[in-house]
């Protein structure tokens, strides 16, 4: 059996009088891929955001690599290890490289160290051709790939991707899927929210379905 990376127990979240997360427990294993399906409004984004510490849960316990927290408290040190990528990623008003370097700079890495990592990440995501384009002018697929590079460059243990292929054309989707497969092959755990069950095909991926606040 693989090692549990992130365990959640009894996650509760009420929004607008509805139990969006109704006592959810799950174990995410190291190097494993997960596809989280569910209808629009079923709470996929909410679950991902709670796991990433961006949204408070009303109750629940998280364990990340043996360290435990009682929600809504969420340790700052976990965040860059479990990075969340928005469905429509926000790219900062700097260059593509500046975006990718953001987390490395926040971490206090010296320039000579992050410069090389940023170059590598740009190649990895295939965004070097658009490196000179202002990020706001990129296509949806290019933005998604820059956001994935920006997260991946931090070597997180878990990536939480919110509908990464939604609203992309066939070519954009193919390129994002290709990156997902490579992340996965490199041993990064990925949890991908997506409302179409068939969309995400990765070898050995586990499927989770969210309905009425429960996982199945």
């Amino acid at each position, binding site marked *: 059996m693989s090692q549990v990376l992130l365990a959640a127990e009894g996650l509760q979240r009420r929004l607008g009088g509805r139990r969006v997360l109704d006592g959810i427990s799950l174990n995410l294993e190291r190097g494993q891929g997960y596809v989280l399906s569910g209808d629009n409004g079923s709470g996929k984004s909410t679950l991902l955001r709670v796991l990433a*510490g961006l949204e408070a849960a009303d109750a629940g316990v998280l364990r990340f690599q043996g360290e435990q927290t009682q929600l809504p408290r969420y340790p700052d040190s976990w965040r860059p290890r479990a990075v969340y990528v928005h469905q429509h990623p926000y790219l900062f008003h700097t260059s593509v490289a500046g975006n990718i370097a953001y987390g490395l700079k926040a971490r206090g890495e010296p320039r000579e160290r992050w410069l090389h990592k940023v170059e590598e990440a740009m190649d990895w995501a295939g965004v070097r051709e658009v490196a000179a384009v202002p990020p706001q002018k990129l296509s949806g697929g290019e933005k998604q790939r820059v956001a994935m590079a920006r997260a991946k460059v931090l070597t997180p243990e878990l990536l939480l991707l919110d509908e990464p292929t939604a609203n992309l054309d066939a070519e954009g989707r193919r390129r994002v899927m290709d990156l997902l497969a490579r992340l996965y092959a490199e041993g990064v755990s990925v949890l991908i929210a997506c409302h179409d069950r068939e969309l995400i095909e990765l070898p050995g991926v586990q499927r989770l379905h969210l309905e009425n606040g429960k996982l199945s």
Partner: protein
Amino acid sequence: MGLLEPTREAFALLFRGDPELLQIIWLSLWLSIAAIALIAPPAIALGVLLAKRRFPGQRTLVVLAQALLSFPTVVIGLVIYLLLSRRGPLGSFELLFSPTAIVIGYMVIAFPILVVFTVSAVQGADPRVFETARSLGASRMRAALTILWEVRFGITAAIVNAFGRVVSEVGCAIMVGGNIAGLTRNMPTAIALETSKGDFAQGIALGMVLMAIALGINVVMALLQGEGGLK
């Protein structure tokens, strides 16, 4: 008397670079810039705090700042006068009728403008900015600075606006500065008081400079709005 002669004289003063005129313009700009530079960091920091954090009294503070916006500057001048006057609580510093007193007045006038503009700029920022920054490991402080960067046009507009307000206001500068030549006489007080003594040429020349500054500020604001609209 006709307007033609003083106007001609005003142009003459401007093009000749009349030392007294330049001194007044220089003092005006310098006092305004100093006041904005001193008050902008704390005012912007408070604006971010008021926009991002929920705490008791937060709404009240924002409403208070908005109310201060429409406070007559002459009343602000009066309050500072009373505080700084010989018998006032801060009288021992002997600041009344000094450039420092004007700078203090300008800081008080600029403060609510900077706070209110910053609050609205930060509240208008995309919520994904803060979330993205935090998820990538930024501290709250760094994430707040990232928001300021993303709304930098709004913040610049706040600063330009505050500068425009103080550089042209009369009431407070007369009250606490006293229009002392070479020390506290700035553009608006010189126009208001020297004109009443019959020196029209200087008033017209300074008026044209103030108009040019106001025009420049409007152009900058229009450009900033254009830039902000790009997002």
